[in-house]
């Protein structure tokens, strides 16, 4: 469907991805309150990490979206790093540490497109990317969030919660948005 695109990064691409990152930030700003409410509810039960994993898909959307918009090698990684830089600059909750997690998330998402040789940007690739994002970020959080210390059942439950969230937002929603864009012929196709 698409010709292979050049992998050079142009000014317009960087602006587009940064704007998209700000856009997702603006749209999902309200969700942070939802997250806080959910965490508050789950905290006394000791289940707060589920709140985190349930909405993690929102923070990892920038990568698959960037991959589909630009279809370049590295666009998922760079897209997510840009998004986390935007988040850090606009006063996200975690400041500098978002840069680190941005890289990890972007790298995780990138793998899904690498495994399909940067040739497919369909539901299959997006789902694969959701899976690799989950595996990579979960491995990272075994250390960072101390998930490794939990009982086996909790680790497994957290993993699948996260997979579900990342698939819903990073694959299903992104696919819906990209289909709209493609049908409207507004992506620079030729």
């Amino acid at each position, binding site marked *: 469907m698409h010709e292979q695109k050049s992998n050079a990064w142009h000014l317009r691409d960087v602006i587009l991805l940064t704007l998209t990152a700000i856009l997702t930030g603006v749209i999902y700003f309200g969700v942070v309150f939802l997250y806080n409410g959910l965490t508050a509810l789950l905290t006394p039960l000791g289940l707060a990490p589920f709140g985190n994993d349930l909405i993690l898909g929102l923070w990892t959307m920038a990568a698959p979206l960037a991959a589909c918009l630009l279809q370049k090698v590295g666009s998922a990684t760079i897209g997510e790093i840009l998004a986390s830089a935007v988040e850090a600059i606009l006063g996200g909750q975690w400041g500098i540490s978002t840069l680190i997690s941005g890289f990890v998330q972007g790298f995780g998402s990138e793998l899904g497109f690498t495994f399909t040789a940067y040739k497919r940007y369909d539901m299959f690739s997006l789902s694969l990317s959701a899976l690799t994002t989950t595996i990579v970020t979960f491995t990272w959080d075994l250390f960072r969030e101390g998930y490794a210390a939990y009982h086996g059942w909790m680790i497994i439950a957290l993993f699948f919660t996260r997979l579900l969230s990342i698939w819903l937002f990073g694959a299903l929603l992104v696919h819906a948005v990209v289909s709209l864009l493609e*049908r*409207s*012929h*507004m992506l620079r196709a*030729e």
Partner: protein
Amino acid sequence: MSYIDITDLTFSYTKQGPLVLENQQLSFQQATFNVLTGPSGSGKSTLLRLLCGLFPQYTGHLQKGQILIDGENIADMDISKRAQKIAMLFQVPAEQFAMPTPRQELIFTLENMRIAPEQMDQRITQAFDFTGISEFADREFSSLSGGEQQKVALAIILALDADTILLDEPFANVDPEARNFLLHRLKQLVSNRGKTVIIADHDLSDYQQLADYLYVMEPTQKQIHLATEAEMQQRFLSFEQNRHQQISISLPDQTDTAEFKLRDFSTGHQKVLLKQANFELMKHHLTVFTGPNGVGKSTLFNSLTKLQDYQGSLTWENNEIAKLKVKDYSRHVALVFQEPISQFLKVTVAEELELSLHNQYDHAWTKERVRDTLADLGLTGFDDHVVYMLSEGQKRKLQILLMLIMGVPTLLLDEPLTGLDLVSVHKIMQLLQQAVRNEDKTVIMISHQLTDVADYADYHISLHEKELSYEASL
């Protein structure tokens, strides 16, 4: 040889797509003031972008031909050299700056030109003084008006010291005072500093004394030609004559009921644009709303539809608008946006129509009625077309139809006639008039075009010096 020479230029947006310019030959002389005119969307800005090398760098395909400036091919110049030869002032004021403030934008530009830092301050001061923007040099762009932003854009071009200055419909969001100021500064640059100015504008007013040459875009022929002296005078003259002949129009009386009331009201995006002690907008009439560019007409509409904050009181049916919920209020009052695409939610024409038909409030529109109206508007056979790919005029007609089908009692329209041909203007006005007469709707529309509108209007309000008033003529 002329200063700028265009030979055999053929350009299209897509490889196999329709040509915008075909075998264009054209030249511009140094130190002249040139006006480029033609219908909007006809390719004026395409030519300007080709002249400064932005096309085909960013978009489109140069099938053949070349552009020489001062004997040098534009395609062979590097970007910073190009910018010093030929620079552009863009149509949307706020979308041409990379930095937060005018001073930072100027520094950014000079750094791009690899100017030595110690020379920068002097250049900046000169550019600011000439364009009169020193007082807001360190304010954020988001707090500046359209006119102020275009002054900054001119300052940047001066700091670049570009020989040729291109302006692409630069006054669309600029108030008359700033427009006048900018036009005279440009004339000075031509006569005192030997700059070449090429300005694309569909509005020819005030150019008769300024222009040395007039160029006319003929979209059907895909050609631009240089008007002869006689044609030029004739075009300026007919533009003045075609200006609207006013007819008298009635004023509201006691029998009218007010729908919207303004009390000690003020609003404005960057600064106060509208300040009104007392005013009322009437129900069940077709009201035309006029006023110069950039004075706050759209801002008032945005306040009326909860898209812009306001001070004081603004009520709809005696309910304070700020306190109404969008979800309920939008069933009663809706806006036809200035940009047609803001109205669209789906992808194809059929999907958009289906959505409005499905969600309409009073079920006054049947499939048959829609089909007949589509035929009337010349929109038959476009069902599977992508709305974003329609021509500007088609988008506009579809947009208005979609909102008429919704059947909301009060419709505010922000320049609904822009880019429409005369036949379409009358069709749209008839539809709006029918909605008012037969279905008891309220229609308030902002319009610059008056000639063919006056016959349909019930009332005329104008915005002048931050105040609204009813006028007895239109």
